[in-house]
């Protein structure tokens, strides 16, 4: 087990930590973490020379009544992919890691735009792909386009 994996296992913000078979799962470690602890965890990864590969969100409100933020960290050299799952209550916010990994800035805006999960501490929390005055979050499972411009922009169905 690597140094960072040892550190994470005992980290206060990590609720559960398991290792996985990379060949079948595509990642080496899976951690479940609390949203508020993410900046501290990201700092650990940053110090160990890891980079943020991906940040996205899954709408699990039907099965688990939460959104799940998915963070993926990796490093060059010997690959070591860490997957971090964070459960966020429907009205709650995530914690921004854009101060640690600048690349997270747009990922977090994308999650906010598409799923409506906002991030505390983000310097510029606004939509990124849709118009600023767009209504709704398209990747939510219960999404119905209610944008007033929809009629103008789309052909009759």
């Amino acid at each position, binding site marked *: 087990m690597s140094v960072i994996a040892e550190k994470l296992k005992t980290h206060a913000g990590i609720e559960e930590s398991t290792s996985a078979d990379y060949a079948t799962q595509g990642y080496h470690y899976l951690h479940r973490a609390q949203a508020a602890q993410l900046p501290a965890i990201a700092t650990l990864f940053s110090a160990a020379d890891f980079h943020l590969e991906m940040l996205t969100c899954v709408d699990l409100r039907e099965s688990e009544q939460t959104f799940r933020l998915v963070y993926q960290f990796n490093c060059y050299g010997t690959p070591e992919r860490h997957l971090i799952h964070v459960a966020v209550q429907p009205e709650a916010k995530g914690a921004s890691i854009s101060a640690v990994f600048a690349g997270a800035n747009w990922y977090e805006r994308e999650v906010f735009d598409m799923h409506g999960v906002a991030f505390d501490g983000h310097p510029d929390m606004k939509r990124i*792909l*849709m*118009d600023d005055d*767009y209504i*709704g979050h*398209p990747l939510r499972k219960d*999404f*119905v*386009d209610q*944008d007033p*411009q*929809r009629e*103008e*922009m*789309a*052909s009759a*169905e």
Partner: protein
Amino acid sequence: MSNNDELVQIQDAESNSDDALLRQVEPLIHLNSLENLLNHARARSLWPLTFGLACCAIEMMAVGAARFDLDRIGAGVFRPSARQADVMILAGTISRKMAEPIKTLWDQMPSPKWSIAMGGCTIDGGPFKYPGQYAIVEGADKIIPVDVYVPGCPPRPEALYAALLKLGEKIKAGDQFKGA
């Protein structure tokens, strides 16, 4: 005299005065020949606006480059400013966020101006059109008037070439968008 007759008389007087007014403002010399000459010039000196929206823009670049060479029909002068351009080639998918800047650019272009919708996306949304899609504008004509449509995904460079020639014919025939 009944009220109806009176009304008819008033209407007649009005239409007569319209005719009189028309006669006053009608030009004594018709400038059609000059206009035709200008249109011939316009048809062979189209200045497109430099911008591409998606993959069709790659084909547009090919048309502009040496192998196909838009300069042969005078349309190779891609202008970096909307104020200097007179044809807008919409090359690629129009996302809903991009719709507003495109409309602004179109409004900034001085008349007379024309536009070409290049590729399936700008015709009706193309491969990205499905019930409930939230991301794109289903056809360029939802936001600006379009003169020539070029089908294809993407169209071959020859197709855009043909479109510019077609637009030239349209301009020579005196057909132009006279809006703001």
